[in-house]
């Protein structure tokens, strides 16, 4: 089983002001599993996704594949191809209206990853058509242009494109954020089926808790560039420990007036009325002893100190 490992990755954007988008993140994603990264704007989750997809470089830390297994031909491709060139990580983006080239037909867009692999034209066509079926699109859509597709349909094309060259991991960057409620549910179902059929691994980046719950095995909660909590989906969703995670889950107003809603706040911005700031650290034991990094509070369930390492360093 192939696994991509990220170790202590930092991503800093230099510009007029240096923005430290990712500050020391470590985790892995393997084939067959779904790891979710949740967080809000400024958390660094999108940057991590881009790093894994190869679109963004790191300022420090490493990204590597753990397994020594050769990349055997599998899925739809067969032998005799430049498989070493095949993209091992693919990505599906948030906005359906931007993820497909408006001047290309669906057929051309789906087959793009196969171009460099020397796959014969008619074989490409076969594979493309088969994949259309797998993602739940009628075969004749393959000759349409993106303008003739709805948001959900465009996302399905993007998913087909991502899977066509049998990658090991697919980064899903807010794949349903721009879609209506009903379309969302169906798309998530398709993603699950495809994973079962192809054993692909997903890195799901999202702020939508219900999607995360449906699709993921493990969840990482990111806040201002670092992971503040990590664990299995049920650990995070049903028994969150870090105050930010609690605030994040609490913050979604339930669509039922009979459910009481008193969201706990984790005040994020300096200069705001400091109401309901948490002062109790979720990690047991004195903060000075356990440091600001992640500590295990239950098997597989890790939590970070409430203090931010940069604030601690600045105060020192």
């Amino acid at each position, binding site marked *: 089983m192939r696994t991509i490992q990220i170790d202590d990755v930092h991503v800093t954007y230099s510009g007029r002001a240096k923005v430290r988008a990712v500050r020391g993140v470590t985790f892995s994603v393997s084939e067959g599993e779904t790891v979710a990264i949740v967080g809000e704007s400024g958390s660094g989750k999108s940057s991590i996704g881009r790093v894994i997809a190869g679109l963004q470089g790191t300022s420090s830390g490493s990204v590597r594949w753990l397994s020594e297994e050769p990349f055997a031909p599998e899925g739809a491709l067969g032998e005799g191809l430049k498989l070493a060139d095949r993209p091992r990580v693919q990505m599906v983006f948030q906005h359906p209206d931007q993820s497909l080239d408006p001047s290309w037909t669906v057929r051309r867009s789906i087959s793009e990853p196969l171009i460099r692999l020397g796959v014969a034209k008619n074989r490409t066509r076969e594979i493309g058509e088969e994949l259309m079926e797998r993602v739940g699109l009628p075969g004749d859509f393959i000759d349409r242009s993106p303008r003739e597709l709805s948001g959900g349909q465009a996302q399905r094309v993007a998913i087909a494109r991502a899977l066509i060259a049998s990658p090991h991991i697919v980064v899903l960057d807010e794949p349903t954020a721009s879609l209506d409620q009903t379309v969302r549910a169906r798309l998530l179902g398709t993603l699950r089926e495809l994973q079962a059929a192809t054993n692909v691994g997903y890195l799901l980046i999202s702020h939508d808790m219900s999607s995360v719950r449906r699709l993921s095995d493990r969840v990482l909660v990111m806040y201002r560039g670092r992971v503040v909590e990590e664990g299995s989906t049920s650990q995070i969703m049903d028994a969150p420990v870090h105050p930010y995670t609690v605030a994040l889950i609490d913050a979604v*107003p339930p669509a039922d007036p009979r459910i009481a809603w008193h969201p706990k706040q984790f005040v994020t911005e300096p200069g705001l009325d400091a109401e309901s700031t948490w002062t109790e650290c979720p990690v047991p034991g004195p903060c000075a002893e356990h440091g600001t990094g992640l500590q295990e509070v239950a098997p597989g369930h890790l939590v970070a100190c409430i203090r931010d390492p940069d604030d601690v360093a600045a105060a020192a």
Partner: protein
Amino acid sequence: MTSLTLSGLTVLAPSGRPILDDIGFHVDPGEIVGLVGESGSGKSMTSLALTGMLPDAVTPAAGTASLGDQTFMSGGKVTRRPEISMVFQNAKAALNPTMRVGKQIERLLVKLGATGRGDLTGRIRSILAEVGIADADRVRKAYPHQLSGGMNQRVMIAMALAAEPRFLIADEPTTGLDVTVQAQILRLLASTTADSNRGVLLITHDLGVVAQTCSRVVVMYHGRIMETGPVDDIFHAAKDPYTRELIASANPDDVVVGAEGVLS
């Protein structure tokens, strides 16, 4: 504070087709009424009609509206500017990007009749404090793009409230904001409404927001009102089939993520 009453609002598209068809509702002082619908339902168009900002292409055909006992709309057209303030979705677009935030508030206050330099700064600080901004000086001196979306939204609400309107319309005020920021903004809206006993028309497509902040709900679809009623009735005993469908889609079978199962 006074109540808002709207009845018979009908607005036509250039082709003659009604975009809004006989829209009417009523908001009491201190109430937050939710105007709910999917995109294309006409909810934003309604708020534009109430504030006299309908686009040129459409034709108001009928409609009467009044704030308390003062009628400000007849025949669908606004006859005198009502004391209604509006808060929009995209704060960054509503604020002037080339002017510091403090300056923009100052200009607004001057237009509203304030005088005296020192007096102004003090007023700006208290206005910002009202929306939960403690570090008023930093925010005053910043440009909109230097502030986060949530901060900009608070500034916009502050400016809307500075005019001390008799009524507030909030059109998708939290759409596009981070979910924790949304929670804070909603709490802010609820508290200023309660404090001032002002009525609020909250326009949104998010049923969770409606369920937790509004006391009554108006459901719109394709330019017509499908159902109106107290929030509990709408969510648990809706009579109209479209309303029932809408409520059902917001609560999918597997999970309603809510505060109940979470550690408190």
